[in-house]
């Protein structure tokens, strides 16, 4: 059975380690990127990742810009994206959903919510 690969893009090392550990514990293969530029490069890799967990607030471009670029690129547009945010209002949630986000999760992260969101998106 193929291993599901998730790309985690978050500049916050604490959150990144938490997300990575939770996913690895459940058998996912995890790639990490700590800024938007690295994240986009990793998102375009071949073979493509199966899902992306993306922080909305990062250096090197906002999460929204990154999401837009992922969804506009034909190689990455079908990859489900789960947005992580420390503070996103209803309008922001609506905006990222219109841009193509599959789910929006608030920080502090609740691991069970993350796992449910990824399973639902795959």
């Amino acid at each position: 059975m193929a291993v599901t690969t998730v790309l985690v893009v978050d500049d916050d090392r604490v959150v990144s380690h938490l997300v990575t550990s939770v996913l690895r514990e459940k058998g996912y293969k995890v790639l990490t990127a700590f800024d938007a530029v690295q994240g986009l490069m990793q998102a375009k890799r071949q073979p493509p990742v199966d899902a992306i967990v993306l922080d909305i607030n990062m250096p090197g471009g906002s999460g929204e810009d990154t999401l837009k670029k992922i969804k506009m690129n034909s190689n990455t547009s079908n990859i489900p994206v789960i947005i992580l945010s420390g503070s996103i209002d209803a309008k922001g949630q609506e905006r990222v959903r219109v841009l193509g986000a599959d789910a929006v999760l608030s920080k502090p992260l609740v691991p069970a919510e993350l796992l449910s969101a990824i399973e639902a998106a795959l």
Partner: protein
Amino acid sequence: MKRSVPALGQDAAPDVPVEPGAADGVLDEGALLTTVGGNRRLATELAEIFLRELESRMPEMAKAVVARDNTRIQFLAHTLMGSAASLSATQVTGTAKKLESMALTGKLAKIDAVFARLEHEIARLGARLTTFIREG
């Protein structure tokens, strides 16, 4: 033993008594362990990463506050807020959020006092995390 922390907007004036333990908002170890599904080793790793990140983050934030660099303050405070929230460190989360909000709105009149409070809270959190790691 009761401890004191400065109130927001007051420069390190210790006048607000708080109870120790989870209720003091410094570090809720129970909530942290719940977040990591009872995995103490993972909780310890998160604490170690947080402390390591602070070594560069706090001096950077101090420089940004002195320079009144709103963009940098907002970004650094936001990241600190996310990390601290993941550790269930309520006080630091709240003060980082306050700093982020001040930087976003450009209302910086009390920013030195709020940053001083953050430094004080970070020192307390650092001590608690160090103990947590040692007890691991």
